[in-house]
């Protein structure tokens, strides 16, 4: 395996190019995540062998296939319990769950809720593209109201889930929102998440030009990117009340919860 790109050592380069469509935001997230991990590794906090990535099924979930860590690409919605099994047995592992909004928040919602409540020591990175990408554009719990999708051809009637509010209502150590329009923030938040015990959650607002873009009339990646960018606001200390995504108007990025309580693993094994 030739290493060319600076992140290639973390990639199964023999499997590139990946399956993601041109301009899909998922690759941006993974790239930022690898830089965050790389920084930890180069700072000596852990090694490449200590990292485990776990994902369910979906476009986002495919990420683990390309990563040169111990990885698991399991079933739709169940990455979190798999990850907990790993973490409890090998507490030294840095266990990272990567998944789409359907994977993590629809079918996997209950595991998100309860692992957050337990302050279980894993990091969950949810790529929110506001749609089911892999299956071709159905409504997601994160889809803005009124949007036409293949399963809501008369417009979505459901209020979108605010993951920041949900996860912050639980007992977690870290909750942040980033966006693919700002890769540095993704990197920083993932870095910060990996720097602590307990449960950490990062929502990354992403672009899916192929499917979501088509639904809202922005098939061109650059246009969709710029459209998203226009809604983004960054706040150093945002309040949870301002976390609702108002599509077309405002999406507030920032670290919403930032604490250092004991995680579940410490309670289980002692320190």
């Amino acid at each position, binding site marked *: 395996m030739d290493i*060319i*790109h*600076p*992140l*290639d050592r973390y*990639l199964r380069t023999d499997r*590139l*190019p*990946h399956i*993601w*469509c*041109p*301009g*899909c*935001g*998922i*690759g*941006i997230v993974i*790239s*930022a995540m690898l*830089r965050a991990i790389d920084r930890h590794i180069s700072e000596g906090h852990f090694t490449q062998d200590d990292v485990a990535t776990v994902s369910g099924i979906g476009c986002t979930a495919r990420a683990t296939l390309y990563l040169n860590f111990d990885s698991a690409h399991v079933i739709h919605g169940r990455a979190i319990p798999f990850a907990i099994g790993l973490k409890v047995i090998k507490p030294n592992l840095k266990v990272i769950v990567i998944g789409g909004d359907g994977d993590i928040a629809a079918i996997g919602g209950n595991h998100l809720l309860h692992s957050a409540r337990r302050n279980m020591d894993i990091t969950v990175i949810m790529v929110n593209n506001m749609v089911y990408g892999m299956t071709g554009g159905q409504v997601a719990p994160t889809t803005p109201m009124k949007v036409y999708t293949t399963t809501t051809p008369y417009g979505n009637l459901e209020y979108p889930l605010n993951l920041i509010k949900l996860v912050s209502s639980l007992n977690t150590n870290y909750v942040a929102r980033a966006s693919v329009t700002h*890769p*540095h923030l993704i*990197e920083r938040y993932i870095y910060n998440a990996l720097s602590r015990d307990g449960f950490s959650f990062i929502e990354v607002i992403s672009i899916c*030009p192929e499917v979501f873009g088509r639904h809202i009339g922005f098939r*061109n*990646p*650059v246009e969709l*990117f*710029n459209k998203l960018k226009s809604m983004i606001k960054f706040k150093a200390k945002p309040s949870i009340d301002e976390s609702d995504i108002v599509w077309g108007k405002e999406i507030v990025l920032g670290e919403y919860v930032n604490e250092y309580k004991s995680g579940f693993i410490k309670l289980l094994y002692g320190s």
Partner: protein
Amino acid sequence: MIVDRCKECGLCINVCPQKVLERGNEFNIYGYRYVSPKYIEKCVGCRLCEYICPDFAIYVEVDGL
């Protein structure tokens, strides 16, 4: 550039503050007209292109540091 990874999405061109990059005219083995750093001399090494590329196709080597 790792030309065969580029998918011609144009995001790097869009974010480059220096307008260094342009869509090329040649096709890679997957049929994409990959990006090329046409005005590389203008590059300030900000790495925005590297960070934004979803395909690990472009990266920046900063010489002489």
